[in-house]
Structure formats: structure tokens, C-alpha cells
């Protein structure tokens, strides 16, 4: 039992090392993932920003949380893509016939997704700083923000795993993320929900992105996140558990 456990960690670290190499060798994916959210940020701040009334005096501060979620939503489509390619190529079968932990390959991809999305998030925050983003929050609120983003990444990564494992084509493996990328538009990420028509507003206020955006915004501006943070956590954990169960079920069926 002890050695199985030790092997499990060896397996995962080998898998992580492998897919991190994939990421480092295709840095263009990080650029692709970050370029659209950064373009959005530029567009909203310098073109539409003047016309949008948010009540906040710094629109970059207002915008950043939603932009980060967009980046993560497009980042996880690469996780689906990488998983899909592994399954299509023989390498998946090679791993499956070796006496290694069954789920190590999947966990390797999940950890890699966390790391690569963290890189994207840092890149975008740096750009935001150049554009005038400021936060006076201390270490704890920042850690809380990191935690929420990590949880959000995990939740979407398991959704991506379902797509990557069950897709029949490359396009199918990544297409699922398009609606996710646009969810922030119908939320309080860019404009306050008060300005929206009733039906849209009801949707916007009750979808996961809004509560996550509101919590991060509050944490970064030194305010109390209040109820939002619990709603945000509930969404992330809920999506993660459901997606995890489905992904694992599909994964086991493949073997």
C-alpha cells in the first residue's frame, strides 16, 4: 500500500513534468490564451470605458476580475486539446498498459492546467498594472483571490476533461469552451447588471461568473466580499464535483 502511494506521486510528477514540457515548448499557447483577454481589456478601458458608468473610479480595477475568468475559460480549452491528442495517439494506450496509477495521466493534465493558467493570470495582471490597475489589499485577500481562481480553474478543467475524453474531433474537444469565454459578458464583469433588461439581468445575477467576479473585485479593493464569496465557492465546488464524477466515469469506460 505504501509503495503504491509513493508510486502514485512519482507517476503524477512524471506526468506533470511531461505536460509542462509541452507547455514550455508551445509558448504560443500562452500568448493565444492571454491575447484576447488583453485585447478586450484595452478595448473596454480605452474605447468603451468612457461611456460605461460603473461607479468605480478606476475602470481597470472593475474590469480585471472578469478578464481573468475569460483567460482561464480559454486556457482550459487547451487542456481538453492536450487530453484529446493523448487519447488519439498511442501514448495513452502505452500508459494504460503499464503498471502505473490509472488516474495519474489525468491528474498530470489537471495540475498542468493549474500551472499554465496561473502563468496566464500573472501575465494579464502585469499588463493590467501597466494600464493603471491598483490594489491596496494585503497578502490574505490576494491569497483568497488566488484560491478562488485556482478553484475556478479546477472546476473548468474537469469540464474540459469531459470534452477532451469524449470528443470525436479536435474541434469538438475545444469548441465547448466558447460559451464559457462569453459568460463574463452576461455578468457584472464589464457593466453593472442594473443597466440590463430584466430577463438578462436575472440570468446575469444568478450565473456563477457574477458572484466570482464580485468576490474577487471586493477582495482586491479591500471591501468585505460578504455572501458572494460563499456563492462563488459553492458554484466552483459544485461544478468541480459533478464534472469530476462524469470525467472519471468516461475515463474508466475508455480503459
Amino acid at each position, binding site marked *: 500500500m505504501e509503495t503504491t502511494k509513493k508510486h502514485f506521486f512519482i*507517476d503524477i510528477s512524471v506526468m506533470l513534468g511531461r505536460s509542462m514540457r509541452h507547455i514550455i515548448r508551445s509558448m504560443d499557447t500562452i500568448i493565444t490564451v492571454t491575447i484576447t483577454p488583453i485585447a478586450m481589456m484595452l478595448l473596454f478601458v480605452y474605447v468603451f470605458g468612457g461611456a460605461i458608468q460603473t461607479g468605480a473610479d478606476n475602470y481597470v480595477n472593475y474590469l480585471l476580475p472578469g478578464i481573468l475568468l475569460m483567460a482561464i475559460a480559454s486556457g482550459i480549452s487547451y487542456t481538453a486539446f492536450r487530453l484529446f491528442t493523448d487519447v488519439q495517439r*498511442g501514448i495513452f494506450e*502505452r500508459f494504460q*498498459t503499464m503498471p502505473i496509477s490509472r488516474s495519474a495521466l489525468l491528474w498530470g493534465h489537471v495540475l498542468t492546467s493549474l500551472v499554465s493558467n496561473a502563468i496566464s493570470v500573472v501575465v494579464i495582471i502585469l499588463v493590467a498594472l501597466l494600464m493603471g490597475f491598483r490594489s491596496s489589499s494585503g497578502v490574505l485577500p490576494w491569497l483568497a483571490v488566488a484560491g478562488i481562481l485556482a478553484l475556478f480553474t479546477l472546476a473548468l478543467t474537469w469540464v474540459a476533461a469531459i470534452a477532451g475524453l469524449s470528443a470525436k474531433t479536435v474541434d469538438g474537444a475545444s469548441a465547448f469552451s466558447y460559451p464559457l469565454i462569453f459568460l463574463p459578458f452576461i455578468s457584472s464583469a464589464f457593466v453593472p447588471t442594473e443597466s440590463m433588461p430584466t430577463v438578462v439581468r436575472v440570468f446575469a445575477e444568478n450565473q456563477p461568473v457574477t458572484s466570482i467576479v464580485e468576490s474577487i473585485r471586493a477582495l482586491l479593493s479591500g471591501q468585505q466580499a460578504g455572501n458572494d464569496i460563499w456563492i462563488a465557492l459553492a458554484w466552483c465546488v459544485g461544478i468541480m464535483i459533478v464534472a469530476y464524477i462524469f470525467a472519471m466515469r468516461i475515463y474508466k469506460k475508455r480503459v
Partner: protein
Amino acid sequence: MQTVQTAQAKSILVKGLQKSYKQLQVLKDVNFEVEKGSIFALLGSNGAGKTTVVKILTTLLKPDGGTAAINGFDVSSQPDHVRQRISLTGQFAAVDEVLTGRENLIMIAKLRYLQNPRQVADNMLTRFGLTDAADRRVSTYSGGMRRRLDIALSIIGNPQIIFLDEPTTGLDPEARIEVWKIVKELANGGTTVFLTTQYLEEAEQLADRIAILHEGRIIANGTLQELKLRFPAAKVEYVEKQPTLEEIFLAIIGKQEGK
């Protein structure tokens, strides 16, 4: 007790194996055994079900009926024991294209929990003539180099039984002869080799025993000599040379279909 004993003496023991994909019944009743340390070739035309047999034996696919045992361990109920003893070189090279050859080898050596993965990788690179290309990405390798790396990955950690699914398909004659050499060396070292092929010449060259899979059944199984004896006598009159396996193959299949 006695059955267990004989079962353990065989590297591979397959009885009444069945497998269907939806309506398509690929394996109807497949039976054969493979002795330890021998080279066994499974011959069959496209779509005969060779890969399906390999996938079942390597725990990738569950059979619908019948049993298959590797060194006495059942593939369905004891897959972990089976995986400890086998290694698969699939029909399509299972290498990581983004990594270099060396990185591929080190990765597998680590997953086999070997003491010194770098050393193992170096030895393999030398043994398979890949030292010069060691630090190039595999995506730049030729088909033959890729296949050699693929086989090298499979024999890391000295598995007792190695499965090679059409190891030389798509290779030029030179690369093919090189793979044959590797396979012979493996068998000389005591490894049991199970290979599938469409090339009759390959089976003729390598195999101690040859089985022909056709329409879901093994329609012939034996040494090359035994198969030659099954060659229809009438035809011998027309050919002066020894019948090649190709002729035997076609003759046997023809007889089956004639029935």
C-alpha cells in the same frame, strides 16, 4: 492443481475468446497458447481482428467471452498482475512527439521506477542507434527511428512478454530488417514475443509458431514446417520450390471459404 501448473507454464493462454463491436462479431472463438521465450506470430489480413486480440491481451479491452491469461493471470480479473509482466508496442508508434528521444526514454524509465533513468536512457540510445538524434524532438524522426524508439520504450524494465502490433508496417526494407534483428535479440534474451503482421515473410523469418486469424477464428496454427505440410498436395506438382507461407496462407483461406 494440474491445470494451474500448465497454465503457468504458458506465457499466453487464450480459450474461446469472443469480442464484438456492436453488431460486428470480430472474434468468434479464438484459441491458442504461446510458450515462454518463443516468438509467436499472429497473421491476418486487414480487419481480421489482430489488434483486437492484442488489446484484449494487454488489458486495454475487455473480452465478451472466453478467457485469456498471461503467465497464469487472467487479463480481465487480474489486470494489475498482467501489466507487471507485459509491454505493448502498438500499431501506431506510441511516442511523445514533443519530447526528445532521450526524454521519452527517461520518462518511461521513471514510470518503471528504475534506479538510474538517465543511465537506462543512455544505454537504450546506444543499443538502438539513436544517440545522434537523442536530443532532437521526436517529431523530426523518420518512421524507422520512431519505431526503434517505440520498441526501446517498450523494453525498458525488461518485461517478460512483449506485444508488437504490426511492428514493421510502413517501414522500408532496411528498417524492417533492423526491427527483425531487435526482435530476435529479445527472444534470445528469454523474452516472449507476440507479434502480429500482414507480411507472411515476416512471420516466416521470425516466428517459432504461426497462427492465422481469419473470420474470427484461428484457422491454422503451427510451426512453419507444420503449416507447409498442410499445403494441398495437388499443388506441389506445379511448384518445384518449397511453398512460401504466402501460398500456404492463400491456400488455407481459400479452403475455408470453399466450405
